[in-house]
């Protein structure tokens, strides 16, 4: 059975299926109830599952994540919504020092299967703090899984796997893609162990095969990379697009395998490149493909400046042109 859904709606349906399949699943956050979330991702869920399972919380992100940890210790599986990327930071301490470390601290006795959904990324003409890409600030911390889907199908599969997984998952939703559509096929709800190891949370996906250069992207920039691949294709360059899906763990094997074939690699993300996840990709690819690389790995991303005003964001964001330019440069090497 398959249906055409928007990206946002695919997440709604994934959450719905999680709420239906497991009575311990909770959805919590600011305005997620009656209002259905500011992006309407939780629309209708409170009506169907009640106020005890779809919970409007006080306006306090540390409180949301901190109480979610407590709920998880009591056996619940809370899915927290952070309203926008730039508002996750009040919860940063709870995520970094508690959520990430509790399983380890207890030598595996305790599990904290909390999912934190974060609409992220730019291009929507928003005001400050509403367009950021902070994923690297979480992926550096051991104990957290950090993922970001790029298609409605992945959004659906990945949110279900994230909720079922026994590990905490930071679930970055490319908000600029919320209104994009795609086919979504349902499947059986995963078990905890299967979910943690599920391909969608662990393995990259070849979004488009190619032979001359590997474009590595995730979340919002997969679409950019695919468009760049179109442009390049028209110019006679065959670009392979690898959709990472997960930033932690990073599927270095898949990327390296691709680069060994193409000999060239460009990484694309919206976050500033300096110490962004592309740094890790570039470092690893440079190491593992030392003898196959024909050119240095290049990174196309945000600049080392706070996310700019909306009127400049298209200069800041990695554009198709900038990706193509980077590919031109690695090809020219």
């Amino acid at each position, binding site marked *: 059975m398959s249906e055409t859904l928007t990206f946002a709606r695919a997440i709604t349906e994934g959450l719905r299926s999680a709420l239906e399949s497991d009575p311990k699943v909770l959805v919590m956050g600011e305005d997620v109830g*009656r209002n259905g979330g500011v992006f309407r991702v939780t629309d209708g869920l409170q009506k169907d599952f009640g106020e005890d399972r779809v919970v409007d919380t006080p306006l306090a992100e540390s409180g949301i994540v901190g109480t979610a940890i407590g709920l998880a210790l009591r056996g619940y599986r809370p899915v927290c919504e952070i309203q926008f990327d730039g508002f996750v930071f009040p919860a940063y301490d709870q995520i970094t020092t508690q959520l990430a470390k509790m399983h380890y601290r207890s030598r595996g006795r305790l599990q904290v299967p909390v999912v934190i959904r974060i609409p992220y990324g730019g291009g929507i003409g928003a005001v400050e*703090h509403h367009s950021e890409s902070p994923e690297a600030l979480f992926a550096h911390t051991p104990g957290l899984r950090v993922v970001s889907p790029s298609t409605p199908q992945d959004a659906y599969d990945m949110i279900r796997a994230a909720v079922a997984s026994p590990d905490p998952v930071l679930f970055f939703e490319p908000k600029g893609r919320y209104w994009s559509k795609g086919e979504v096929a349902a499947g059986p709800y995963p078990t905890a162990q299967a979910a943690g190891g599920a391909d969608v949370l662990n393995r990259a996906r070849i979004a488009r095969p190619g032979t001359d250069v590997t474009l590595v992207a995730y979340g919002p920039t997969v679409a950019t990379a695919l468009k760049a691949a179109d442009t390049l294709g028209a110019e006679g360059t065959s670009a392979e697009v690898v959709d990472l899906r997960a930033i932690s763990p990073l599927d270095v094997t898949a990327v390296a395998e691709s680069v060994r074939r193409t000999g060239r690699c460009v990484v694309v993300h919206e976050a500033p490149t300096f110490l962004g996840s592309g740094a890790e990709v570039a470092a690893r690819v440079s190491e593992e493909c030392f003898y196959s690389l024909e050119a240095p790995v290049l990174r196309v991303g945000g600049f*080392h400046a706070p996310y700019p005003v909306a*009127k400049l964001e298209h200069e800041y964001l990695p554009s198709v*042109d900038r990706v193509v330019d980077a590919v031109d440069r690695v090809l020219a090497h």
Partner: protein
Amino acid sequence: MPHTPTGEPDAAPADIAPVDVEPLVQLVSPTGERVVEPDNAGYRSRVDHLTSEDLRALYRDMVLTRRFDDEATALQRQGELALYAQGRGQEAAQVGSAYALAPQDYVFPSYREHGVLQARGVDPVDRLRLYRGQDHGGWDTEAHNVHLYTLVIGSHVLHATGYAMGIQRDGAVGTGDAARDAAVVTYFGDGATSQGDVSEALVFAAVNNAPVVFFLQNNQWAISEPTSRQSRAPLYQRGEGFGIPSVRVDGNDVLAVYAVTAEALERAHSGGGPTFIEAYTYRMGAHTTSDDPSRYRERAEEDYWARRDPIERVAALLRAEDGWDDDWAAGIDREADALGERLRTEVRQLGAPPTATMFEHVYATEHAQVQTERAWFEQYENETNETTGATR
């Protein structure tokens, strides 16, 4: 699940004239009569000196704030603003409190205090730069002693407290010199009271006895969440738990707001430390232009509060005490029209800043990473311009 006692009547009960919470400082009733009661005598004396000129000035700023709001909302609908957060209904709380400030006092607003900015003389066009996505700030903070809007809820309340600690260190508290003693007023919402930063600000202000006024506008809603999702005790009591004198005021009564703020500022200026004010008001509009309140609140409640419009209350007071000078009123309407006109023209002209500003002021001194990327970008732009004739 057991239900939570809120200690507070629901926001929209029947059709009662006075505001329905106790205690509440009120000096003017919703229908424009002076409220004279033994226990508001102290506050009454604080507005005694206000002349009808003052009342007219308050009215004027409230009307201009309302017009600003309407024009900005319209501009957003026309795609000229990225977003806009209306202040409709909160004009008395904002203008009334700002009127009590001395010039040397400093304001840390949230993002909806257009009435405060109006009263402090921040240019209306500048006020919209942020919402146009053209600037992250928009005005010269030092020129008006008004800090920029802060969008991370609650975080500026700590800045306000630190600033007040700086005022103490400058020796600008308790000197008795009215032109010197300074204080800070910081604005935040009912939702913000849940943020740890706001509580920490109360801690720091109290133990340092800092000259800061915590001005909470309880507009009953934090986007779709009613105040009962943030607190089960009336919010003005929050300050008391931290040892900070606290008061609840009818936030739609501009004179009462003025009086309680003046009292708080007097305390701060003289070295008496912080005050916590809960201005009980209502957000008559949507949270922002992206919001649809019909999803979560009742029409009846909106109607209830429509009848308590703060502007109508001052108008009624002026009618009762000052007659009503039609020429003067028409003059204000013309001013409002001119404001609208100006906004419609000038906001449209606020273009994108030069691309290079993207790299400016990341640091105050040179930073290699920014320099490298900026140099790369400029070269890239030049090359792209040369080859394609356009950037993208």
